[in-house]
C-alpha cells in the first residue's frame, strides 16, 4: 500500500505548504499548479491509482478523492481571500474592525480588594480568612462589645441562633489570628460581611471589608498614621491629603476615622464629597487592651493597631457609582466597564 502512504504524505505536505502561501495572485496560482496542475502531485497519485488491483482500488479510491476535494476546497478559500482583498494587490482595507480577544472581567469590588491587599502585602501583611457564620463571641464579645451596649446598634445583625450570627465585620478574623499566632502579627482580613439594614442605593445587606492588624512591641499611633498615609498615597495618588479625627470603636482605643481629600474636586467641594472636600474612607485605632486580654496577649508588653475599610464604598467613590445594588445585579454591560 505504498500509494496510500504517499497520498498521506502529499496531504500532510499540502497542509504545511498551505500556511506558507502568500496571498497574491501569482503565488496562489503557483501553489495550485504544484498540487492540482496537470503535472501536480495529486494528478500523479491518480495516475498511479489506475494501475492498482480492484481490491486496492477499493481501499484507496475514497482517500484519494478526499485529498483532491480537500485541496480544491483549500485553494478555493485562498482565492476567496484573494478576492476579498481585492484585485489590487496593494489594496488592504485596514479600517475593517479587528477581532477583539475575548477576556473576562473581574468584579470591580474584587479588583479593588486585590489592589488594596497588594499594597499592604508589599508592606508585609499576610492574608487570613474566616467564616461568615460567626459566634457572638468572635463578632462582639472578644472585640469588647459588651452585651446590651449601644455600640451594638452601630452594626445591625442577622441572627441564626442565640449566639450564632452572620459576621457584621471581618474583625473576628483578627481575633482568630491572634489566638493562633504569636506577635509580631500582621494580617489583612478581606471578606464578605452582613448587616441587617434596609436595602437602598446606599446600603445593601451584604458587602465587603478589608481589615488590617499589626501587633508587636512598640506599635504606635504614629506608625499607624504612617502606614495609612502610604496606603492612601499609593491607592489614591501621591497628592492626596489625610484627615484623622477621633471616633469610637469598641475594639480600638484611641479610635479614629480617616478622611481623604476628595479626589474628584481636589478638596474644593463637590457633590460626591457633599461639599465638605473630604471623603470618609476608613476607620482605625490602637487595639483596645480588653481585646488583647481576651486573646491572651499581654497588653503591657504589646501594642497594636487595626484598621478597616469597605472596598464596595471605595469602588463606588473611585468609579463614580451611585448605587451599591449595581454590584449585585450582574448586568454585564456594567461589569464590562471595569
Amino acid at each position, binding site marked *: 500500500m505504498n500509494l496510500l*502512504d504517499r497520498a498521506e504524505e502529499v496531504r500532510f505536505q499540502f497542509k504545511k505548504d498551505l500556511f506558507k502561501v502568500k496571498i497574491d495572485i501569482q503565488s496562489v496560482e503557483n501553489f495550485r499548479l504544484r498540487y492540482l496542475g496537470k503535472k501536480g502531485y495529486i494528478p500523479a497519485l491518480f495516475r498511479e491509482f489506475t494501475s492498482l488491483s480492484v481490491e486496492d482500488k477499493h481501499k484507496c479510491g*475514497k482517500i484519494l478523492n478526499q485529498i483532491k476535494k480537500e485541496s480544491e476546497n483549500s485553494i478555493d478559500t485562498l482565492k476567496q481571500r484573494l478576492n476579498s482583498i481585492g484585485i489590487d494587490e496593494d489594496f488592504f482595507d485596514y479600517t475593517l474592525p479587528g477581532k477583539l480577544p*475575548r*477576556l*473576562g*472581567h*473581574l*468584579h470591580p469590588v*474584587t479588583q479593588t480588594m486585590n489592589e488594596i491587599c497588594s499594597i499592604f502585602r508589599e*508592606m*508585609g501583611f*499576610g492574608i487570613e*480568612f474566616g467564616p*461568615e*457564620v460567626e459566634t457572638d463571641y468572635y463578632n462582639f464579645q472578644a472585640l469588647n462589645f459588651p452585651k*446590651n451596649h*449601644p*455600640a451594638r446598634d452601630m452594626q445591625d445583625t*442577622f*441572627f*441564626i*441562633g442565640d449566639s*450564632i450570627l452572620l459576621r457584621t465585620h471581618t474583625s473576628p478574623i483578627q481575633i482568630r489570628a491572634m489566638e493562633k499566632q504569636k506577635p*509580631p*502579627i*500582621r*494580617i489583612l482580613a478581606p471578606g*464578605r460581611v*452582613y448587616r*441587617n439594614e434596609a436595602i437602598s442605593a446606599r446600603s*445593601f445587606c*451584604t458587602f465587603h471589608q478589608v481589615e488590617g492588624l*499589626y501587633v508587636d512591641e*512598640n506599635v*504606635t*499611633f*504614629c*506608625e499607624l*498614621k*504612617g*502606614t495609612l*498615609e502610604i496606603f492612601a498615597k499609593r491607592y489614591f495618588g501621591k497628592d492626596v491629603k489625610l484627615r*484623622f*479625627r*477621633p*471616633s*469610637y470603636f469598641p475594639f480600638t482605643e*484611641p479610635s*479614629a*476615622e480617616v478622611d481623604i481629600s476628595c479626589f474628584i474636586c481636589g478638596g474644593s467641594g463637590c457633590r460626591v464629597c457633599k461639599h465638605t472636600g473630604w471623603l470618609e474612607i476608613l476607620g482605625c485605632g*490602637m487595639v483596645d487592651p480588653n481585646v488583647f486580654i481576651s486573646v491572651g496577649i499581654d497588653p503591657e508588653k504589646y*501594642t497594636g493597631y487595626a484598621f478597616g475599610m469597605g472596598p464596595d464604598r471605595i469602588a463606588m467613590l473611585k468609579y463614580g457609582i451611585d448605587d451599591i445594588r449595581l*454590584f*449585585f445585579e*450582574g*448586568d*454585564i*454591560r456594567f*461589569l*464590562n466597564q471595569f
Partner: protein
Amino acid sequence: MIVNTKWLEKYIDIPYSPEELEEHLTYIGLESKIQKSPVDKIRGVIIAEVLDVSPHPNADRLSICKVSTGFDMQDVVCGAPNVAKGQKVPLALLGTVLPNGMELKPVKIRGINSEGMICAEDELGISSDHSGIMVLDEKAPLGMELSEYLSGEGTSIDIDLTPNRPDCTSHIGVAREISILTQGELKIPEIKFKESEESTEDYIDVEIENIDGCPRYAARVIKNVKIAPSPQWLINHLKSVGIRSINNIVDASSFVLMETGQPLHTFDYRKIEGKKIVVRNAEEGELVETLDGIKRALSKDILLICDAKHPVAIAGVMGLSNSEITPETKDILIESAYFSSTTIRNGSKYLGLSTEASYRFERGVDPEGIINAVNRITDIIIELAGGKVCKGIVDKYPKKISPAEVKVRFKRINRLIGIDIEKSWVKEIFEKLGCRILKSDDESVQVLSPTWRPDLEREADYIEEVIRIYGMHKIPSAKRLQIKPSNEVNSRYDLIEKLRSILCSYGYFEVFNNSLVSEKQTQFTFKPVKPVKLRNPLSLDMAYLRTSLIPGLINTARRNINRRNCDLQIFELGFIQYFDPDSETHAMEILKFSVLITGAIEDEHWGYQIRKSDVFILKGVIEDLTHRFGIESLKFEKCKNNYFRHLLGTNINGKEFCYLGQINQEYLQSEWSIEVPIYVLDANASVLLDQAKFEIRYKPLPIYPAIERDVSILLPEKIPIEEVNQKIIREGGELLREVKFYDLYYGKNVDNGLKSITFNLVFQVADRTLKDKEVDKRMLAIHEVLKNDLNAKLR
C-alpha cells in the same frame, strides 16, 4: 444630637464662626454637620405686617390682606385660616423663586390681583407644615430679609455622637468641650427659686424595689402651676433642635433635657394615688398605655414607675397616659432619676421604642447631675407657670455610683502615641475635662473621673482623651515604618485569586450575587441539605443562606436576558452554607465556584463563525482548569438530578468536586421564565485548592520526527467515544504519543444508527526515528480491535 449655636452661647463664649465650630468639634471627635436652612438661599422673602384682612368677594375660603413691608404696601390674596390683622409674616415678593421652584408672578385670583404671597413653612422649605401661614414674633423688624432674621436664631449643628459620649447629649456637655478648646469659662445657670413651707416629703414617698435597675430616684412637687402655651423664646429654642412645643411644663422638661442631658418626667400629681412612687419590675405581659396612645404588653425585665396602685410610666422610656399633664393639671410631680443603662436598653429594644430619654439613659446619665436638673426645671416652671415649690427633694440613692479612680502613666501615653507629650499639659487637660487629680509624680498621675464621664474607666480611656484633645491631625506620621514582612504565609488567597483570574482569562465575567435567598432557592442542590435560616430576615426572599451559587447565577442570567444581554459567560466564587448533618447548630461553610453560559460564546465578527454554548465548553473549562492546578485525567460520570437535563459529575482523589450540565428546560421555563438553554458548572473550590499541585517537571522536547495517522471509522451510534479512545491507546502502545478526537459526523452518507468519527494519532518516540512499518503494524492492530470489539467499519 442637635445643638444650636445661640443656645450654646448661654454657657460658653464661642469665638468661632459656625463653620469653624463645625470643624473644631469634628477634630475632637464630635462629628458635626451644620444643618443648612433652606431659607438661607432664598432672597426676596421679607418680613411684612398684616394691616387689614377682608373677605374675598368671590371665594369663601380666601381673604384679601393688605400688607406693609415698611416701605411699600400691597394687596395679597391668602387662603390660610390663621391669617389675622397685626401679624408679622414672611412675604414672598414678585420675582422670588421659592425652594420648591415656584416663581412669584402677578396673578389674578378669582378676579382679584395678588402681588406676592404670605408663606407657610412648607413653602419656605422649613418644615412640612401647611396648616397655616408662618407667624413671626411681633418684634420681627419690618422689611428685613427672612433669611437674615432667622440667622439671628443661631445655627443648628447635627452631631453624630459615638455611643461612648453620653456627656455630650446636652448643650452644657458640648459647651464644656468647647471650653477646653477656647480655655473659656463655662457658665452654669444659677438657681433662683424660693421654696415654700410645705415639705415635699409630706406629698410623696419613693420606694425602690429594684435598686440595680434604679440606683437613684429624686422627686419634687410643685403646687398650683398654670398650664399655658410656652413663650416664643422657648418655642424657638426647642424648634432649633427639632423639638415640637407642647405646653410650658412639658417644654420645660425638654429644655432641661437638652440643656443638661438629664431626662426628666413630669406627672400630674393629682393622678398619683397614695402619695407614693414605687419603682418595680413589670409583670410578664402587663398591659399599659403609653403617652403616644399605644397599648403595650411588657416583659418582666422592664422597669415600671408606679403609684400606690398603678403603673404611671415605663422607666426611662415614656410616661403613661393615665398621669399625663393636661390643661387642667394644677400640681405636678417631677421625676429625675438614674436608671441602669442595660435595663433601659433592654426595655427600649423589647418595646421597639426609642425616645430622647431612653437614648440618654442607655448611654449613661450623670448620677450627680440629678439634683441640679430638678432645681433647674423648678426654676423654669416657676418662671413660666408660677406655683409653689415644696420644700426639699425626696432623693432615694440606695446604690452609690462611684466614678473610677485610674492611674495614668506618662510613659504609656508616649509609648502608645509615639511622641513625647508634656506632662503638665496632660494634667491640665484632665482637669479641664472635669477630672480630679488625686496624686501625681514624675511617672504617673492618679485621676478620678467626673461623674458625667462613665466612659473614663481605664488608662486607655485617658490616653484616648489626651490624643483627642491634642489633635490627631497634629500627631506626626512615622517616616520609617518598623513593620517587616510576615513569615506566616497563607497561600490560600493566592490560590483563590489564581482561580479567579484563570476563569477570567477564559472570557468569563465575575459576578456577585446576594448570599441571602428564598427557601425555594435553597432546594437547588445535588444532595438534600438542611439550609441555614435567619431569625430576623429583611424579607422572606432573603431568609436563608444560599446552599448553591447556581440559583443566583440563573437569576443574574434572567435579569441580563430580560435586558437583551443574551450571550453570557459568568461565574461567581463564594461561600455557601448549610447545617452539618451531624449537628443542628454548626453551619458548614464551603468555598464554591460556579459558571453559567448561555447563547453565543463569541462576539459576532465579520469573517468568523459564532459558536454556541454547550455542555462540552464547560467540560473543557473544568479539564483545563484542573490541569492548571496540577490535577490530571478527570473521570466524568453521568449523574441524575431533576434540575438537569444532562448532568456529569467528577471527583478529585475521591472527593466530590464538580457537576456540570444543561439545566432542565421545563424548570427554567416554569421557575424563571427562561426560554433559552442554560449550561452550568458547579465546583467545590476548596477541593481543588486542597488538591492542587504545582510541581512542574520539564519534559525534554522530542528530537526525532513524528508520524501522523488518522483513524476514520463508522461506529454504532451508542458506543461512547471514550471506549474507542481507550482501545486506541492500548493498541497504540508506547509508540503512540497522542490521540486527538477531531471529527464527529451523522447524517448524509452515514447509515442510520451509525456515526462517522475520526481520530488523529501521533506516533513518536524519544530515542529514534520511527519506521513506517512499525506504525503500520500498530495501525493494523488498532483497526482490527475496533472492527472486532466495537463493530466498527473502516472508511
